[in-house]
């Protein structure tokens, strides 16, 4: 049986682990370590290996949900993780100093994968930091020559994450 996967990526603290937990039909596997260096100020622990969850489909098929580690020194894993993936969900933390820089970084890091598939963007923590707005993100994307679905999401809320995943699916095939 073929293995299908959806990749969750984004900077530390964006909510990747939480998002996978919201969607997964099984308790997600998470490998957390005490944070070191600059991540410590944002979170007391951080994912240094990966998050894993699964969506059970009718007929016994599974969709594997992989979350990339948020720390850049693990970027060699991103290529391995994304290989064979259906699409990419990029989560951005709106409370970070420069979320636009984060966006540019990750879109560039996964450029090859995105060209083969699709990406959607979920912006988290907008209740704590309402700016930049979603419209601001679209303005940035337009300047980069891109038109990507971008939603305000709460990674804890399954409905938000399900809608983001639906947007990814419809981006891949509007005829679904």
């Amino acid at each position, binding site marked *: 049986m*073929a293995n*299908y996967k959806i990749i969750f990526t984004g900077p530390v603290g964006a909510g990747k682990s939480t998002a996978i937990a919201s969607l997964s039909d099984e308790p997600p596997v998470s490998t957390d370590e005490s944070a070191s260096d600059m991540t410590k100020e944002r979170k007391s622990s951080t994912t240094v290996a990966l998050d894993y969850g699964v*969506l*059970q*489909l*009718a*007929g016994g*098929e599974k*969709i594997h949900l992989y979350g990339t580690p948020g720390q850049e020194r693990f970027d060699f894993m991103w290529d391995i993780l994304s290989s064979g993936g*259906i699409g990419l969900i990029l989560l951005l933390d709106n409370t970070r100093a420069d979320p636009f820089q984060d966006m540019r970084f990750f879109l560039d890091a996964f450029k090859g994968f995105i060209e083969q598939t699709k990406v959607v963007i979920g912006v988290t923590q907008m209740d704590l930091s*309402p700016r930049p*707005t*979603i419209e601001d993100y*679209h303005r940035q*994307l*337009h300047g980069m020559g891109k*038109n*990507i*679905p*971008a*939603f*305000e*999401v709460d990674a804890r809320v399954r*409905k*938000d994450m*399900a*809608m*983001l*995943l*639906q*947007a990814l*699916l*419809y*981006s*891949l*095939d*509007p*005829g*679904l």
Partner: protein
Amino acid sequence: MVKRQDLVLRVCALGFDTRSYMALQLFFQGKCSDKANLSGEEGADLAIIDLDSFNSAKILAAERERYPHRPLILLSLEEQHDSLPGSIYIKKPVQIQNMLAALDDMRSRLSGAKSPDRVVPFKTIPETSEVPANPAVAASRPAKVKVFVAREETQNTGYAASLLDEKGFGDYIGSLQDIDAGNPLELRAAQYDPRRHFQGYLQSACKAALSKNCALRLNTGWKPITIFPQSREIWIDADDQQLRSFCLVPVHSIADLDFADGGSAVMTVTPASAVKAKDEEYDPSKVQRMDALVWKVALWTSAGRVPDDIDLTRPVYLRHWPNFTRLLVFPHAMRVAAVLSEQPRSLLEVARVLNIRQQYVFAFFSAARAIGLADQAVRQAENLIAPPPIEPPKNAGILRKILHRLIGR
């Protein structure tokens, strides 16, 4: 092509107070959504008049003068013995069955078909004989007035209201059959003018508040609405049901119903207090996001139609995907967004390639345009080359399974 007898009747309601109008609205959205829709006065196929309203005589006289050939359904507590040619009288309390029967009768008349025999739960008062002043005129008059007197039956309007909620977004759009854009009659049925409804005023007020960067109050003549541009929020003391009913009343009809502020016939905008956090007047639970409210208002007002300045055969564009997680989402909205975000297409073509009813595409466009995300394409290049067909990806099967899993099928 849609046959005339299959067309949904456009019905205007005159002389109703707000509560009665909303009750009528619930009826049209539920039981007879495939037979008739409430619409504005202009272009309506028939009119329903409440003869018990305080200025009903004036309303009736104006109606006969402006639209002498438009059939009427007349509602009253009192039995009516004076006949009006082409009219149907229903005694209050109005029962659903009687209204449905009257609408069926009207549809038959308008389509020229023979009225079918039917059993309806009402008592027919024997038609009174008439002594026409001019026999020649009498000979050319249509059938005499039919009178329906309802039995004492209880009506569960609460059930109707919960049905409206539970039936989902289809009730928000109403029911508009697919049109042939080459048929002017059908085209007209699929268009509306946002400026003649609350939607137009709300959009203008929001635009003014954002450009001036100061809080504004929109005085609607019904409930005040306060717009806070810096937080992009709107305060309104009304629930969705009330607001939706208000959205469907043409602005000039609001003036006719005589609850406009100070006798003003139009809505006005005045500065408002921006210190909403400290102002006890503003209940935080009644605050809504600006984009979400304008989106909703446009959806309700459009009722599956498109603004009348849009050419359905020319491409439209979508600037970017709407922020769906914070908006009212309806069937096929994401699919329409996916298609339009790739390349401009005409609305009719979007419906065709997705194989969905046009009303979903029209509603999406109306709402997206209302929040500034969509409009008619103007560049000639977008009209020159037809967009490519949508090809499903190789893994469409697994994508469909994931989608079904997410939406619980």
